[in-house]
């Protein structure tokens, strides 16, 4: 008994420290973003903080933001999906191919999104039903579908001119592009589901203790399956967004998203072990990545430098995360 009482007081003390750690981590991320903005503001005083540039940054973050919003709950539930990049590639290639047949552009978008989502169903089936490790599964489907995208397109980039995609790109509501509105909406929706709904709570339960969730009557199969489908759906939508932004479809489009989506989620404080995380953190992390990319471009630094800075930031973020969970467990 004395033992457990000791443990109790210990973990209470640790909890207080953890709360500070938690705040530090989340606010630390925000601090990182603010410092970065200040830094680039002085590097490029007359342009960086203009309305136009802020919008440019946000538009640049659209595809990543949509995919990271869907990846976050998946990782919280104990899964992971590294195949999103290949879904982006396949979706854009499909869009290019189908538009070339003269099909209505609405139908093209719909079909591409359905195909993208079905890849998520495949991922989910393999992971949930066949019990294959999620990283291995999505690594496999990533390779498979990015290869397929290259085969379908013969490696060619197709330029796309279509009123629907132009509408996506150029429509503004109160000077704010519709793309920005979409990504903000998606993130807000993900945050709402995470915080306020039974589904959100069950995602944390499954990621935190799958057996406890199962023994409390929570379906530990349907929900993860759904999360894989949502993840692929987000990638398909991101593919459509990218086509409209770039005005072209290429099987290489997805490659840059291979790991950046997972990176954003982890940088945002979501635990790879599952059970812990938040879309709010992910949103800040996406902001950091987008700002970094924009700032580097304006300073005319090579994009490799960006990758290096990103890698360093990720390691630091994960170290902070592990230290705080060690503090809690000690």
């Amino acid at each position, binding site marked *: *008994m004395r033992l457990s009482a000791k443990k109790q007081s210990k973990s209470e003390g640790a*909890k207080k420290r953890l709360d500070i750690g938690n705040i530090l981590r989340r606010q630390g991320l925000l601090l990182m973003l603010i410092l970065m903005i200040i830094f680039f503001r002085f590097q490029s005083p007359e342009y960086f903080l203009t309305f136009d540039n802020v919008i440019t940054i946000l538009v640049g973050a659209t595809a990543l933001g949509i995919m990271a919003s869907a990846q976050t709950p998946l990782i919280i539930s104990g899964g992971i999906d590294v195949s999103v990049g290949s879904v982006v590639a396949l979706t854009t290639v499909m869009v290019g191919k189908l538009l070339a047949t003269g099909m209505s552009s609405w139908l093209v978008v719909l079909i591409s999104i359905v195909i993208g989502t079905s890849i998520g169903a495949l991922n989910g089936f393999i992971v949930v039903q066949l019990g294959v490790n999620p990283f291995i599964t999505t690594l496999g489907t990533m390779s498979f579908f990015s290869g397929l995208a290259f085969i379908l397109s013969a490696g060619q980039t197709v330029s796309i001119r279509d009123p629907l995609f132009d509408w996506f790109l150029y429509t503004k509501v109160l000077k704010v592009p519709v793309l920005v509105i979409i990504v903000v909406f998606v993130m807000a929706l993900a945050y709402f589901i995470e915080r306020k709904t039974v589904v959100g709570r*069950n995602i*944390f339960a499954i990621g*935190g203790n799958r057996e*406890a969730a199962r*023994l409390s*009557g929570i379906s530990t199969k349907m929900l993860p399956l759904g999360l894989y489908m949502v993840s692929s759906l987000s990638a398909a939508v991101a593919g459509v967004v990218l086509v409209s932004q770039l005005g072209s479809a290429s099987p290489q489009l997805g490659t840059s998203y291979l790991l950046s989506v997972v990176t954003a989620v982890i940088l945002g404080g979501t635990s790879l072990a599952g059970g812990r995380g938040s879309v709010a953190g992910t949103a800040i992390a996406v902001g950091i990545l987008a700002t970094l990319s924009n700032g580097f471009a304006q300073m005319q630094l090579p994009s490799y430098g960006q990758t290096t800075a990103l890698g360093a930031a990720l390691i630091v973020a994960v170290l902070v995360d592990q230290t705080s969970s060690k503090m809690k467990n000690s």
Partner: protein
Amino acid sequence: MIANDQQDRARKSPILQLNSISKRYGGVQALSDVSLHVYPGEILCLVGENGAGKSTLAAIAAGLISPDSGKIIVDGTEVVLNSPRAAETAGVRLASQELQLCPELNVMTNVLLGHYPCKKIPFLVDYASMKRKAAERLESLGLEDIDLLQNVGEMPVVYRAFVQIARSLTPGAKVLITDEPTAPMSDIEATRLLKLLKTICDQGVGIIFVSHRLDEVLNIADRVLVLRDGKLVDEMSKSEGDKERIVSSMLGHTTIDSVKASSSVSADSEIALKVENLSTSNGISETNLTLKYGEILGVYGIAGSGRDSLGMTLFGCNKPTSGKIIVGGSELKLGSIKSTMDIGIGYVPAERRAQGLLLERSIKENITLAFLRKLSKLGLIQAKSEDVAGQLWARNLSIKTDNIENTVLSLSGGNQQKVLLSRWLLTGCRILILDDPTRGVDIGSKLEIYELLQNLAHNEKVAVLVISSDIEEVLKISDRIEVMRNGKITLSKTNPTQQEVARAAYLEDAS
């Protein structure tokens, strides 16, 4: 015969002596003033109820735990066994309860784990000599039939235990301690293991054998020591040993008042749950059971008796191979947790942390986990209803916390268990199955939980099924008791005595 034994022993001196060992864990005196000695070539069996101190004693002898006081003498020299390494140097070897092998490595690598022979160039393993050494080791134990190159993970459990023992018997072994090696084994497998132990003791090694199975203890032991509540209460030589004496020593002569407030269950109480000829692949065979509303039915059994599978199976965690579960006159869909919950059955699992709690989440979230759907509208959690439910049940069960938003990790074991109980009470289930509801719970919370269960059954008329590894608990709270052994019910009785329960759990086989 006895005289012979004693003469024989007098010639040898003990290879291992533990003198006046005491060990305290918090408020629990795990061992008090226990002394024992083992002679070379002798098999000493340690028996006792759960929590009697057997495993602690074995761990102290193996250097895993340091005693608070007492002396350890190996081969005439006093030693301090403050680490497994120290114990190994002294010649004391432990083949522990959980097999500690690398399942992906083959037999010879496991046997010589950490002691690989090297070639002249360092870091290069000499596989030829490794194979030879491993083969020699196995041969000396009469285990030539084990394939040196097979992966350990692919072998049946008894062979894994053999490999574990072979591995622990590095050169210089004087004493081998095995802690419940036969628990996961069938009788035939256990017999093979006992034969192996005989072989080892014939080579002059002293063996301390911890077991729950009295048959095998009497079969193999040269001497039997009985522990109860951390004290040595009986010692008998092979010729003196009999099961009745062991059981009565294990239990002591403390009369537990099995007299309870007269149970309110009359013969015509409505049947809540009826199990007919239930068999599973995980250790239950042809079991029949009836649970009535308003009663606490206690199910007692030792580890491996099938008692834990029973709870899991009734809750739909796994699909039985045959049999029926009837609730409220209709057959329950088997192997489905959802339909089991829908019909009003709740289940508090045995492993609080592994199977029950979301440790990093709040007390409130842990309480409402199984009922969240009902506390929501269109999938949206009604924050107010959830708060009210959490507050209410935290208060009803007097869960000690200043804020139900604190993580459940901040609670003591007893309060964590109350959180799990409230999770199911909140659902309003009419049938509640609990597996070891007071495991690792302090005595105060224990009594609170008992009171709660009794109130639940006798006043609220809930059907309560308590599965337990604690014989006193079962006797104390149950209106009726079923005892399981080898997957079968061996006793079904209202107010049995402790002796009857113990006999049925340890000795009798269902006819």
